[in-house]
Structures are given as C-alpha cells and as structure tokens.
C-alpha cells in the first residue's frame, strides 16, 4: 500500500483561499449571533425576576406537589371526569368539523388559481390571518360572553380559531393542485363550478381530510384547555382541582388526558392511512 504524499499546507492555502482566509465578517457572524442571543436570554432572565433562590424554593415546592400527586386517584368523581372527557372529545370533533365546513368555500376565495385577482384575495387572506392571530382561549372568552358558560362556547371557539387555520391550509392545498384536470373539464365544456367540483375537489379532498383529522387530534389538546376559562370539558375539572390543591385528582386528570390524546392519535393516524395511503403520512 502506497501512502499519498501529504499535501503542503501552504499549497492547499494557495489553492483554496476562500476556505483558509474567510473574511472576518463571515467568521464572526455566527459567534456574534450566538453571543447576542445569549445576551438577550440573560437580560430576559433578569427582567422576568428569575433568581436562584426563587428557583430552588419553587423546585422544592414542585417536588412536594409531585409527591402529593402519587398515586393518581379520582376519588369518587370518576363518572364526572369521564363525562367531562366525553364533552372534551365532543367539543374537538364538532368544532373541527364546523370549521372545516365553513372554511372550504372561503379557502376557494383565498386560492390563487381560483381567484387570480389579488384585490379580492388579499382581504380574505388578511381576514384569515387575523383570526389565526387570536388564540383559541381568547375566542373562548368572547363566545362565553355571547352564549354563556359551557361546552357550546368551546365548540364555537374552536370552530372560529380553526376556521382561520383551515382557510390557509386548504387554500394552499388548492393552489398545489394540478391544473391539467381543471383544463380537461373546461375543454369538455364544463362551467366554473364543474371545474371546481370535478377538476379540483377530487385532488384536494384527500389532503383536506388528512388535515382535518390531524386537527381533530390536536384540538383534543386545545379542547382540554379551553375549560380553564369556563368553556366546558375536562379543563374545567382540571383547573378546579388545581385551585383546590387536590393533587391526586389532578394527576389522574392529566393521565386521562394523556390516554385520550394517545387513543385519538392512534385512531386518526389509522384513518389517515386509510384515506391518503401510507406514503403521504410522515
């Protein structure tokens, strides 16, 4: 076995000057960014009242809370918790479906290949963006003002906030659709509605169905928290038990949420496989 002669360092430097003599700005950019990021981080810690003493005291307290949580025990309120969990799942399913039903026609208006003029598209897009900019919890508070406390307010809150998200996702799916099928419909004499119904919908519906299922899954999580402001479901129970420091019940409720989310995850990934095939689900 022959050894290759080691190339001279000077020779290499002459051949690849851009590797050896990078300008100072390029060499310092990344360290400077890292230092800057950490400077803001430290400033944030100071500004937000972090101190080792508070941290230790808090961790001590947290340790106690965790000790008190074991073992999880629902006490005598298991039936009430199961009903609340059912309520949460209902909120997620109903809210997501409502959002999808209303978002579909609006998303057509926000898609470039359906509404080419940006004068019409722009306000629709900004409208959807503003809806998305407001958190589900805020919508829940607003709806509680309108229809009163209870799960119905939660359904409407999830429906409204998902409406914004779906409008964007659906319109992106529609924009990504293949033009040729639409042209085919037009060539055979179909009107604008025929183009959408027979040219676009068969392409985008599986994508949309996948997204809706994914959102039902993630809304199960959102639906658990809107109860905190009084919009029904298991979050209401959870917030109440935390407030009265019933830690065993709290840990039981958290476990219930974890199990419910895992089950919904499993069901919806099975359904997604069935609808769009294995390859489309990453």
């Amino acid at each position, binding site marked *: 076995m022959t050894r290759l002669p080691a190339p001279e360092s000077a020779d290499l430097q002459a051949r690849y000057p851009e590797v050896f003599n990078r300008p100072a700005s390029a060499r310092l950019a990344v360290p400077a960014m890292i230092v800057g990021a950490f400077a803001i981080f430290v400033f944030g810690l100071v500004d937000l009242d972090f101190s080792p003493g508070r941290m230790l005291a808090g961790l001590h307290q947290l340790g106690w809370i965790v000790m008190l949580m074991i073992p999880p025990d629902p006490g005598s309120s298991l039936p009430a918790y199961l009903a609340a969990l059912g*309520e949460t799942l*209902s*909120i997620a399913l109903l809210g997501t479906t409502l959002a999808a039903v209303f978002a579909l026609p609006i998303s057509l208006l926000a898609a470039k290949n359906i509404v080419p003029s940006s004068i019409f598209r722009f306000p629709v897009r900004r409208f959807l963006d503003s809806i998305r900019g*407001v958190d589900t919890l805020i919508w829940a*508070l607003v709806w509680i003002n309108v229809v009163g406390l209870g799960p119905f307010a939660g359904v409407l809150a999830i429906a409204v906030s998902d409406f914004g998200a779906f409008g964007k996702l659906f319109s992106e799916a529609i924009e990504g659709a293949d033009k040729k099928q639409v042209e085919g419909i037009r060539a055979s004499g179909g009107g604008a509605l025929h183009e959408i119904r027979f040219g676009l919908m068969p392409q985008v519906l599986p994508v949309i169905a996948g997204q809706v299922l994914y959102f039902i899954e993630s809304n199960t999580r959102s639906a658990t928290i809107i109860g905190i402001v009084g919009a029904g479901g298991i979050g209401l129970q*959870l917030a109440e038990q935390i407030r009265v420091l019933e830690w065993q019940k709290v840990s039981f409720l*958290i476990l219930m*949420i974890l199990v419910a989310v895992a089950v919904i995850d499993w069901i919806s990934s099975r359904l997604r496989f069935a609808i769009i095939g294995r390859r489309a689900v990453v």
Partner: protein
Amino acid sequence: MTVAVPLLPSPQLAALNDAYRKAVARKRLRFTMATAVLFAALVIAAVGAEVDLRTFVAKIGNFVSYFDRIATLENGARVWSDVGEWFWGWQKWLSLLGETILISYVGTLAGALVAFALNFLVAENTSPARWLRFVVRRFMEFCRTVPDIVFALIFVIAFGLGPMAGVLAIAIHSTGALGKLFSEMVENADMKPVEGVRSTGANWVSCMRFAVLPQVAAGFASYTLLRFEINVRGASVMGFVGAGGIGQELVVAIRKFYYSDVSAILLMIILTVFVIDIGTGWARGRLFGKDARS
C-alpha cells in the same frame, strides 16, 4: 384531423360496463357508510357538547354586536375617531407585550437548549442505549402532550404568580415539541461522517459535535424560530392563569366588559404576532435559503 373512436362489440362492452358499475357502486357504498358514521358521531358529539341551536340563533346577534361594541368608546364614538383615548394605556400594554415576547423568547431558548441536549439520546441512529432512549422519549411525549397552560397553572402555585411560571411552562412544552422535531432531523442525517469521525478514535460526544451537528444545525435553528413564533401566541394567554404577560390585562378587560380596551389589546397582540411571523419568516429565509421558509 378526425379520428374514429373504435367501439367495442357490445358483449365485450357489457362486461366492462358491468365491472365499472360495480366498482363505482362499491365506492359509493363505502362513501355513504363513512358519511353516516361521521354524521352519527357528530350528533352524539352535539348532544355531549350541549349544543343548543336556539341559544345560538337567539344570541348570534350578540356575537356580531360584540365587534360593534369593542369598536365603540365609552362616550359612544367609534374607536378610531379618538386614537389617544382608545390606546389610553399604550405604555403599560406595550411593556406587557414586551414581557410577553421576552417570556416566549426565554422559554423557547431554554426549551431548545434542553431539547438539543436530549435529542441525540432519542434519535434511533445516535442513541447510546436503548433504555435511555425509551425513558427520554416518554419524557418528551409527556412534555408535549400536556398543554403549556396546564403546566403554567401548576407552576403558578409552585413558583408563585408572575412571568417565571410562564417561562418554565413554555420551556417544558418546547422541550417536548422541539425534541421530537430535532431527533427526527438527526435520524435523517447522513451517518457516513459519523463513521469517519469514529474511525479516528473519537468518543460519542465528539462524534455528535463534529459529524452530526454540522448537518443539522441550520434545521435546528429554523425549527426553533418557528417554535418562537408559536410560543408568542401561547405567551399572550399565559396571563389568563396569572403567569405573566399581556393576557392578564386582556382577561380583565374581557371579563369586566371594558370593550374598547379589548379591541385595543387584541389589535396590539395581532400586530405583534404579524410582525413576529414576518420577522422569523424573513430570518429563516435569510439564514437558511428560501426552502426553509415554508
């Protein structure tokens, strides 16, 4: 140019037509059944969620008029006719918004650092031990399944009211969410550089540092920026449970029906979210090329 479409003889055609009809009928049946199941589930859900269409119809006017009310000042004028009166508390709100952004920044960065430290243990191709992988993985799943506001509720009791609870809640949730994304990225990394580094006698830490990290660093930063964007929204409601930020002011304004304040604060939150959205989108495009923007 005319092309004659050849017609098949009818017996042959009949068989094909028959098969086609059967296939379509099967598809229709499946579709109808799926719709029926969905409909049944929706009806059950409607009963479970106490949906009451009569209240809805009776009160929907309230929803529309709510936006009318939040666009009206106390003296009855439209809010935009007197911006000074509308944004009377802008100094306080602006500093609270700054606090909100800082909460999400510190929370995201802390979460990203923990996720960074843990993700190499979770990724299938780099994990040093099976049991470790299993344990850390379950921990991350726990962190991301429990909503951040639930952590905030508990931390407010442990650490006291204030932004600290919010930061820790966001940090823990981000650890779970980013840990998953990071480890998936490491799993997709090319393993040949790792072999190269290991063949020089390097230990596990050096392998990660010199072989894996250069491949994934840009992606990590991109995901972290995306998470920051999400966390700004999350931090805006942390105040609902007393964990700092603008949420406290908002929930008071909504509950006490200070209508014009609600619209002013909401507008400020929406604008902030827009600016952060655009800013992080720009930063990601700038740092990692156009393809990282989506």
